């Protein structure tokens, strides 16, 4: 069923009785051409582009729980392309362009809202670094503007301009950045993939890989053996646990990142704002809650919850840059499991095992990457060659010395 304004009106006048389930719930077949392990944003996006753009047939997405139950349902919904390095920026700009056309592509309202992101700089050195990053963004075809203090005062009068220790010196603004409705992204991709014939199989946990002579022939699941010509793993925080079943050790640690939502407030924050002296980022949801976050807790965790010292750290960062939030009450908080890679950048690559592919290491930036990740992964699966914008996101880049380390902190996942 294609969604339209007329359809909504018609359903509204007839008691909303005509809506149908958005995707099927098929039984798994004995074999597929492609199996995508992981029904999160990236997995569903991969299925969508593989079927729609690359003409893939006979595709299944296997999800251990329900689709969208992982980080696509647990993030702070920010979409942007403000990276500095060659291996990253063209990829994220491709992603932002796909975001801009996503709702038309999927015929689904993902509530994409390009309200801008403003990165604040608090020293001369940081301003220079942002100017450089802005130039890198412009060279990839993205938009970037360097704002001076008075322009920021006009745009965000509520910020703390009296802080002597961390004065606001400048800001890097990307107007095309913004936020999207995270769950709707998962549902929109799932619906579209399903309409293109992809079998989405929920409550189907992969318990092992079927290997023969160094080739991957399919997966063992709690619903039996399912064979596949190509098996594509895409499981974010569970990457190490799943790939261990194929005998692989990854350059990834799983860490917990917390996020917070305040009570609903009247519109007060124009876009996404990040604090450059502490780690704090905030936006306001359409319902009015302030959505914010900061650093990782810093230790390996699969718990999907963090601890209080980081709550205090994030909130004090917020108070430092935006004192007015001290009057708002915290409504809820949660944690997600991040697949933190050794240089802070992701992987979309073949593995050393024929027929087995890997996508992961998204750290805490996976949401914005969802469309390009799916597109480039589908490209890799369909053609066996990396997409040009993901050509540096390789598993062997560490031994070759070609790290993509945006932050420049080295092999220390909890600092990226």
């Amino acid at each position, binding site marked *: 069923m294609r969604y339209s304004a007329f359809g909504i009106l018609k359903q509204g006048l007839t008691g909303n009785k005509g809506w149908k389930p958005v995707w099927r719930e098929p039984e798994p077949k004995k074999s597929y051409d492609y199996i995508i392990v992981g029904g999160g944003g990236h997995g569903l996006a991969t299925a969508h582009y593989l079927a729609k753009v690359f003409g893939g047939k006979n595709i299944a997405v296997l999800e251990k729980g329900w689709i969208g139950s992982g980080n696509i349902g647990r993030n702070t919904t920010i979409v942007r392309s403000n990276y500095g390095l060659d291996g990253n920026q063209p990829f994220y700009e491709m992603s932002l362009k796909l975001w801009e056309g996503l709702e038309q592509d999927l015929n689904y309202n993902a509530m994409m809202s390009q309200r801008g992101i403003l990165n604040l700089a608090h020293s001369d050195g940081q301003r220079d670094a942002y100017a450089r990053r802005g130039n890198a963004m412009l060279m990839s075809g993205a938009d970037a503007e360097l704002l001076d203090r008075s322009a920021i005062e006009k745009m965000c009068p509520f910020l703390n301009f009296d802080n002597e220790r961390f004065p606001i010196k400048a800001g890097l603004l990307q107007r095309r950045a913004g936020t999207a409705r995270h769950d709707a992204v998962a549902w929109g991709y799932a619906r579209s993939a399903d309409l293109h014939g992809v079998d989405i199989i929920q409550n189907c946990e992969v318990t092992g890989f079927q290997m023969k002579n160094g080739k991957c022939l399919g997966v063992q699941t709690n619903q039996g053996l399912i064979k596949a010509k190509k098996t594509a793993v895409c499981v974010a925080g*569970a990457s*190490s*646990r799943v790939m*261990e079943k194929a005998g692989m*050790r*990854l*350059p*990834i*640690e*799983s860490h917990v990142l917390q996020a917070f939502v305040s009570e609903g407030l009247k519109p007060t924050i124009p876009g996404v704002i990040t604090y450059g002296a502490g780690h704090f980022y905030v936006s306001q949801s359409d319902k009015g809650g302030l959505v914010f976050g900061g650093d990782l807790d*810093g*230790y*390996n*965790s*699969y*718990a999907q919850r963090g*601890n209080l*010292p980081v709550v205090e750290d994030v909130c004090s960062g917020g108070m430092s840059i935006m004192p007015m939030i001290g009057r708002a009450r915290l409504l809820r908080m949660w944690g997600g499991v991040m697949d933190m890679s*050794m240089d802070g950048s992701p992987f979309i690559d073949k593995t050393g095992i024929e027929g087995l592919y890997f996508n992961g290491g998204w750290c805490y930036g996976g949401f914005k990457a969802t469309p390009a990740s799916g597109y480039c992964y589908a490209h890799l699966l369909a053609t066996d060659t990396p997409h040009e914008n993901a050509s540096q996101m390789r598993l062997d880049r*560490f*031994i070759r010395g070609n790290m993509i380390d945006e932050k420049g902190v080295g*092999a*220390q*996942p*909890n600092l990226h």
Partner: protein
Amino acid sequence: MIINHPLLGPRDASEFTHLGDESMIDRPDGMNEGAAEKFHDYLYLRDNPAGKYRELWYHEAGDRSWLVVTRDTVTHEIFKVELARDVARSRGRSK
């Protein structure tokens, strides 16, 4: 989390920084054959288990000792805390 320091008793985890896997105690010998590959595995590859995990913590805001903490990454429960020095010595280091 409370880390029960072997010398100082129970201390809040916020006094510590987290380095990572305990295997980093066993630094490869750079002069041996295949050292580049060994260093790659040592520096970049991780077991990353869900469950019991042995990891290095540094008591930065305390006595600056390195500790090996055995902790559950699913529940955050801490089972055992040792001085990294003792762990290294028990493997025949610094004799």
